[in-house]
């Protein structure tokens, strides 16, 4: 019941306050409640029932949030998708979650014509507006344990998995964020991060606090800065790459940023240099948000004005502390046998609480691997210090985080392996100043046919979202493997680091 409750409550308490805005329009709480009631009623008339999944494939715009609210008011499940996904990937996701219909922007809808099951509606066009301004009926509130959102995430297998998030999880995110960060109805938050990303739950938490959420269509550092000044934004959620770009913009020093109280950053670790420069030049505190979609979004937070953590004196060159457990998200470090490790010892970071996902959709095997005895295994290796701060040391899997978005090597390898002239392939992450990491691929060519780098990259463009495309493909004689045949990615990463240093 969480999302419908939040919107109905705010519409009663502060009907004329702004709830949502983007470049095209502004909606008060009353308007947002009325429009989402009407869309829910139209969906019900179309045959949508409790538990049905509805795909929303769109760039950032206020209608995406509107649909999230309308769909969940009906007890149906909002399934936001990356609009940059090539059509075959969207088809694959649809074959898994089996939606009853799809909302998409016109261009995408045309590209998807006849490829997805069920009905379709173009976001923002006449039919959509008819739905939003039509008859309104009340609908029974969904239960807290009912699925509200299904996020698609990258997966170690190379095919995306569908993370089922319940209303209860979204409330847990709000409770933890509000308690720790004092989200309030006076807040205006800029959100340039994609709304199909797990971080969108932070925007929902801000709405739950009665604040105003500003949806930025496409992030550019210049527009971000002008919007902070124009809208007197008090908060923003950015990835470390975005912060880096904002600091480089020519207009930074001439923009009035005095309204900002906090810049939250997440999606990947921030470098000490970017954090130092950000703190020196922004007129506000920074807050690190460590999270995982399967954990319900944020699970640990750290504000820049907190006292220095105890630290990890026994480690040479330790990483920055990612944060302390958010209220409601209990974090421990477990060893391979599932035993809790004392502070300072490195193991897998695990979390439990109401925020944790219900399951991976239709994939009980993967769910059982990820959630063991109630603990969600994050795949991150790290430790806690004596003051409870979490440190991320490495990853248990081979995840590559490019500018806050996850890429698994298997996704790239699956595509490249099918290409003519490719005998063997392995992908790894390479350090990048702008993105934290970028994917690169190593390919062993067939003796008879040597593929070109451009042809291989182009093949990835056709089947993968652009951020998953390797930035380079190196042709080599052999992929290093251990005796069991497992790719030795560490060796490949070392080879990359050595060649970067040499050049």
């Amino acid at each position, binding site marked *: 019941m969480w999302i419908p409750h939040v919107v109905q409550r705010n519409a009663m308490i502060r009907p004329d306050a702004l709830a949502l805005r983007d470049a095209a329009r502004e909606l008060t709480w009353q308007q947002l409640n009325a429009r989402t009631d009407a869309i829910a009623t139209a969906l019900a008339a179309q045959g949508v029932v409790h538990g049905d999944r509805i795909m929303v494939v769109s760039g950032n715009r206020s209608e995406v949030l509107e649909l999230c609210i309308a769909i969940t008011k009906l007890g149906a499940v909002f399934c936001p998708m990356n609009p*940059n996904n090539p059509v075959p990937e969207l088809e694959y996701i649809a074959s898994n979650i089996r939606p009853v219909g799809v909302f998409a922007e016109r*261009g995408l809808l045309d590209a998807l014509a006849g490829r997805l099951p069920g009905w379709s509606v173009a976001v923002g066009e006449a039919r959509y507006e008819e739905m939003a301004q039509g008859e309104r009926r009340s609908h029974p509130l969904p239960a807290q344990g009912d699925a509200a959102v299904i996020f698609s995430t990258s997966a170690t297998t190379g095919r995306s998995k569908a993370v089922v998030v319940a209303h209860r999880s979204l409330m847990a995110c709000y409770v933890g964020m509000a308690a720790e960060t004092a989200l309030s109805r006076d807040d205006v938050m800029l959100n340039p991060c994609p709304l199909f990303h797990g971080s969108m739950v932070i925007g929902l938490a801000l709405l739950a606090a009665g604040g105003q959420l500003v949806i930025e269509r*496409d*992030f*550019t*550092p*210049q*527009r971000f800065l*002008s919007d902070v000044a124009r809208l007197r934004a008090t908060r923003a959620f950015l990835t470390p*790459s975005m912060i880096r*770009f904002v600091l*480089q*913009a*020519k*207009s930074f020093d*001439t923009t009035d940023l005095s309204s900002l109280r906090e810049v939250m950053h997440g999606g990947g670790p921030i470098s000490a240099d970017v954090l130092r420069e950000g703190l020196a030049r922004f007129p506000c505190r920074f807050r690190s948000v460590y999270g995982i979609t399967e954990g319900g979004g944020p699970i640990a937070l750290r504000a820049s004005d907190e006292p220095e953590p105890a630290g990890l004196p026994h480690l040479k060159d330790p990483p920055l502390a990612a944060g302390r457990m958010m209220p409601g998200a209990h974090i421990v470090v477990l060893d391979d046998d599932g035993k809790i490790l004392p502070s300072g010892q490195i193991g897998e970071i695990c979390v439990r609480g109401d925020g944790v996902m219900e399951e991976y959709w239709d994939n009980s095997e993967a769910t059982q691997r990820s959630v063991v005895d109630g603990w969600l295994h994050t795949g991150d290796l790290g430790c806690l210090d004596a003051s409870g701060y979490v440190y991320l040391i490495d990853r248990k899997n081979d995840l590559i985080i490019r*500018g806050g978005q996850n890429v698994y090597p298997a996704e790239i390898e699956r595509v490249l392996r099918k290409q003519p002239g490719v005998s063997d392939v392995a992908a790894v992450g390479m350090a990048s100043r*702008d*993105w934290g990491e*970028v994917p690169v691929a190593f390919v062993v060519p067939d003796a008879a046919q040597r593929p070109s*780098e*451009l042809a291989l*990259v*182009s093949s990835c*463009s056709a089947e993968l979202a*652009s*951020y998953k*495309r390797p*930035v*380079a493909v190196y042709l080599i004689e052999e992929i290093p493997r251990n005796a069991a045949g497992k790719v030795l990615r560490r060796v490949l990463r070392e080879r990359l680091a050595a060649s970067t240093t040499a050049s």
Partner: protein
Amino acid sequence: MTNKLTPGRVLLMEVLDVPQLADTIADDADLILAGINSGDLIRLGLRIEEQTDLPLTDDELIELQTVNGIDNVLANRTRE
């Protein structure tokens, strides 16, 4: 396909991780639809600011969607 090496296309090649991709894009093709990562366009905007020592305006940002658009922005800045 070989396209004319205009200043805009040269700049695009400089910011792309795989510069050869720039040669596959028609002058008036939408860069994102042609497979260019939105992050590369951010770097392109910052590179233009750096080269001309002037912040990009909203109108200029909107124009940076095609190779022709990049050329227009560069040409107008050179004129100014």
